[in-house]
């Protein structure tokens, strides 16, 4: 996953090979061999129990018990005091943001948000903020929204504070990037469900633990995209700066960071969206669960409310994203020609904003406005009723819609997913292991093949072979569908401004709407357990891939494109021979993130019937079986690394061929 570790030899040159040595053909033959083996020995030779190490879950459980004993003992170690301090500090940070909103009263919060956005982001930004506040008020979810905002704001600020510096270092040092990449993979792939309990033992429940859980998931993306941005700065520009005698520091501050601006902003944007996507899981261990709590608890008691809360999360995401983006644009160095007169006017505006906020808060107090808005009247009930009507329609198995979707779902499972699943789990394990390793070798070379072999071996040894193969079959399908959907869309978005504008809100919704929310309708429409999980994975992974692919293509230097144009390249040639090859780093990061996102949803899949490893992890947390949950998570991670090695190799092989 070492993105852009090598920048040499970017020529898209395919060495000539005899047709029978085509690596795809050979891989196909390997698969054919595996299918034959499956036909000959169906469900024979499962992973041998002699090669299984069964005591790992027990050790892990003992470790957790030990940890809990330490924490609960009469005089706990000083480490727990420190951790307690950290947790309290983080919790206080979150509460401070929430109580600031409360103290301003809802009127003051509204005014402050809108006016600050107006001053720093302009009219559009302030309209976004105003719209968001108005919808929280109308939904009757003001206080929940404040709680969630506080949690997300704290998590994002801290994630960026940690992630951006590390990302800059990773952008400048190959060795550092290579060292942290596996850690980042683990942070993103290992499901939060697996480590929620130790987090709770160490940090107790509450906003502090929620912030940490959120950060574990959102820091990696900040690091990754920052590093990508710094690396994307053209080498000759950096060399030019060096030639002019710039110090390393100057190169960073005056060349690399400004030129990487676009991707740094993408890093901020994605960190916000990732943090918001953890809101639901963090609510499981938070004492002020906010919108996320409504989603998890509402699913059983009031699904309409859960869906409403889900949309409140989306609205918050989009409005924060749009207004911070407007603010960032306003502070774009390219636009900053600040004259003396203009500076004075800006000062005045700032002053006026502050006074206006102060006045509004004062008026709000004198009129006795509450800390939160509560008088939404019939609006929330009306909205829930409408959502419930829609749900009732979806839940009704006698509609024509259901007859179409259930037919699709049933056939997809019967003729696609289930046979594939049977093939993965039923093929003799030595054949499966050997075959996948061979494919990794053919597509990627020997080194990735060794890693693939080792990772699959790990899955077998820890006793998760059958579950692992079950999940692998679904992950492969989800991944193929994601790429088929995301690549063309990403390219289209990059090429057309209008497409980009049209598709962006859809991506935002998909990335931030909690999966549990949009899964409800899918559960009813595709009443077969595996399909909703795959749909969720594709819908969750595709936006990130689309974004990275389009950002990569758009970031291809304009002069290169112009040069190609001046040679008379057609649009198709431009795309296929210039833009896509040059955007390869971003595209590879897209594939990598696609794998990670698909695996991140495996647990959600477990909650809606995908079975396999996801079920084990969900089961592990909720039944208090820590060991089995962690073991299944390790298997998910191993699966992720193996998949990454198989897919990444293609590029490496090409690089080697061109040398």
């Amino acid at each position, binding site marked *: 996953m070492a993105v852009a570790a090598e920048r040499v030899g970017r020529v898209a040159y395919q060495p000539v090979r005899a047709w029978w040595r085509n690596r795809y053909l050979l891989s196909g033959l390997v698969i054919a061999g595996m299918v034959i083996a499956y036909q000959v020995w169906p469900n024979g030779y499962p992973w041998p129990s002699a090669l299984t190490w069964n005591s790992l879950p027990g050790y892990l459980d003992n470790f957790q018990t030990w940890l*809990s004993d330490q924490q*609960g003992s009469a005089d706990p170690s000083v480490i727990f005091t420190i951790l307690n301090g950290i947790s309290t500090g983080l919790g206080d940070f979150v509460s401070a943001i929430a109580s*600031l909103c409360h*103290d*301003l009263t809802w009127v*003051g919060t509204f005014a*402050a948000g809108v006016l600050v956005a107006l*001053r*720093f982001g302009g009219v559009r930004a302030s309209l976004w903020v105003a719209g968001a506040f108005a919808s929280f008020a109308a939904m009757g979810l003001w206080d929940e929204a404040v709680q969630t905002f506080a949690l997300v704001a704290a998590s994002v600020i801290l994630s960026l504070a940690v992630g951006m510096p590390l990302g800059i270092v990773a952008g400048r040092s190959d060795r550092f990037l290579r060292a942290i990449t596996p850690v980042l993979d683990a942070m993103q792939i290992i499901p939060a469900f697996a480590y*929620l*309990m130790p987090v709770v033992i160490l940090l*107790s*429940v*509450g906003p502090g633990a929620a912030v940490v859980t959120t950060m574990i998931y959102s820091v990696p993306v900040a690091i990754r995209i920052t590093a990508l941005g710094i690396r994307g700065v053209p080498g000759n520009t950096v060399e030019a700066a060096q030639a002019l005698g710039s110090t390393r520091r100057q190169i960073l501050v005056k060349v690399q960071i400004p030129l990487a601006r676009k991707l740094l902003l993408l890093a901020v944007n994605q960190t916000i969206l990732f943090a918001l996507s953890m809101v639901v899981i963090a609510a*499981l*261990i938070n*004492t002020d*669960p906010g919108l996320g709590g409504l989603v998890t*608890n509402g*699913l*059983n*008691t*009031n*699904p309409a409310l859960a869906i409403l809360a889900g949309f409140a999360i989306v609205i918050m995401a989009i409005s924060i994203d749009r207004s911070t983006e407007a603010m960032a644009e306003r502070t774009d160095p390219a636009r*900053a020609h*600040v004259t003396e007169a203009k500076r004075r006017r800006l000062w005045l505006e*700032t*002053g006026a904003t*502050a006074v206006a*906020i*102060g006045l509004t*808060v004062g008026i709000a*107090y004198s009129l006795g406005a509450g*800390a939160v808005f509560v008088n939404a009247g019939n609006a929330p009930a009306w909205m829930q009723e409408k959502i*419930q009507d829609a749900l009732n329609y979806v*839940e009704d*198995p*006698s509609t024509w819609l259901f007859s179409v979707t259930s037919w699709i779902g049933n056939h997809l499972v*019967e003729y696609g997913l289930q046979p594939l699943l*049977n093939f993965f789990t039923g093929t003799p394990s030595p054949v499966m292991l050997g075959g996948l390793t061979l494919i990794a070798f053919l597509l990627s070379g020997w080194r990735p093949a060794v890693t693939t072999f080792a990772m699959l071996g790990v899955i077998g040894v820890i006793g998760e072979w059958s579950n692992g193969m079950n999940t692998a079959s679904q992950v492969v399908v989800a991944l193929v569908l994601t790429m088929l959907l995301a690549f063309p869309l990403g390219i289209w978005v990059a090429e057309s401004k209008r497409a980009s504008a049209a598709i962006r809100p859809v991506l935002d919704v998909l990335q931030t709407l909690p999966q*549990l929310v949009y*899964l409800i309708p899918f*559960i*009813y429409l595709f*009443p*077969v*357990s595996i399909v*909703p999980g795959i749909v969720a994975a594709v819908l969750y992974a595709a936006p990130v891939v689309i974004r990275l692919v389009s950002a990569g293509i758009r970031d291809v230097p304009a002069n290169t494109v112009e040069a190609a144009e001046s040679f008379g390249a057609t649009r198709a040639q431009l795309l296929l021979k210039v833009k896509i090859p040059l955007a390869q780093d971003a595209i590879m990061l897209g594939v990598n993130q696609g794998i990670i996102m698909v695996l991140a949803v495996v647990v959600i899949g*477990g*909650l*809606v*019937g995908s079975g396999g490893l996801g*079920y084990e992890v*969900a*089961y592990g*947390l*909720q*039944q*208090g*079986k820590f060991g089995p949950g962690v073991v299944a998570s390790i298997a998910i991670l191993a699966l992720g690394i193996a998949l990454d090695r198989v897919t990444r190799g293609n590029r490496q092989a090409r690089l080697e061929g061109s040398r």
Partner: protein
Amino acid sequence: MSKYLTRRRRLLLPLFALALAAIAFAGVSSATAGGKSCGTVTLNEQAWAGSTANTYVAKYVLEHNLGCKVNVTQITEVPVYQAMADGKTDAVLEDWGHVTQQKQYVAKQKTVVAEGVNGVIGVIGWYIPDYLMKQYPQFKTWRGLKGKETIFKSPESGSQGMFLGGDPSYQQKDRTLIKALGLNLKFVSVGAEAAQVARWTQLYKQHKPVLFYWYDPQYLNAQYKLDQVKLPPRFPGCQDDESKGGNPKKYACAYPTYILQKFFSKKFATSGSPAVKFLKKWKWSNTDQNVVAGMIAGQHMDPDKAAEKWVKANQAKVKAWLR
């Protein structure tokens, strides 16, 4: 550099103004209501309707009769033990038997205290719709399923019949049970309760066969007519925790009846608050819980309002709790 600084200062100024405004008005805001000696009680609501019903009825009485301020947390089942140990949550009013956690926190650490039963009796078993029972009376016991398994076929169960498993967080041993009873069924997990409900209610509405893990008290049992398939009786030494493994035959017995318990944080239990005395006495029946849960989950009534309605209609029971 200087331009950079001024820009930053420009950003900082309104923040200062905000902070000042906040400090100026912070003092005015908080005047706590109620008072007495009760203080704040934190109850934990869990992800099923019955738990919501417990929590909000207790909340209503605590607030209106004892003048407590009640916070409701929604921490999930296992981490909530740690939350009680740390004193972040005061009480869980319905626990379905988390043996490992009880050993750790109640018996060993003594940071959580068992405070008796909540009156609700939990029943877990294999259920089928009533229309199916009428069609196949032999399904009264598990033996009747033998040879008839394939009527439960579904796309994901292949040639076998489908057994629809329960929410992963609930107590279950169906995989082993199916093996032990030698039934030609495939255990299919559809995940969380919402997903499981989606699946069987849909089949129910289409009057199709379905066999699934289910439990009582559950408000849906009032909406759908379901019957239990009798499993082999319990025998001495019969097992329920399938993760322990071993001979499947040891698991070949019905689920135990769950006497649901209340757990308090040690800190809270020894705090002497009047809320402790009330919550210790608080206890109701499956029927009571189903009525309130039905209002909340069936009619989507606001939990506070549902609790109020029940309390007003059941003053005698409430008085007994407060005595």
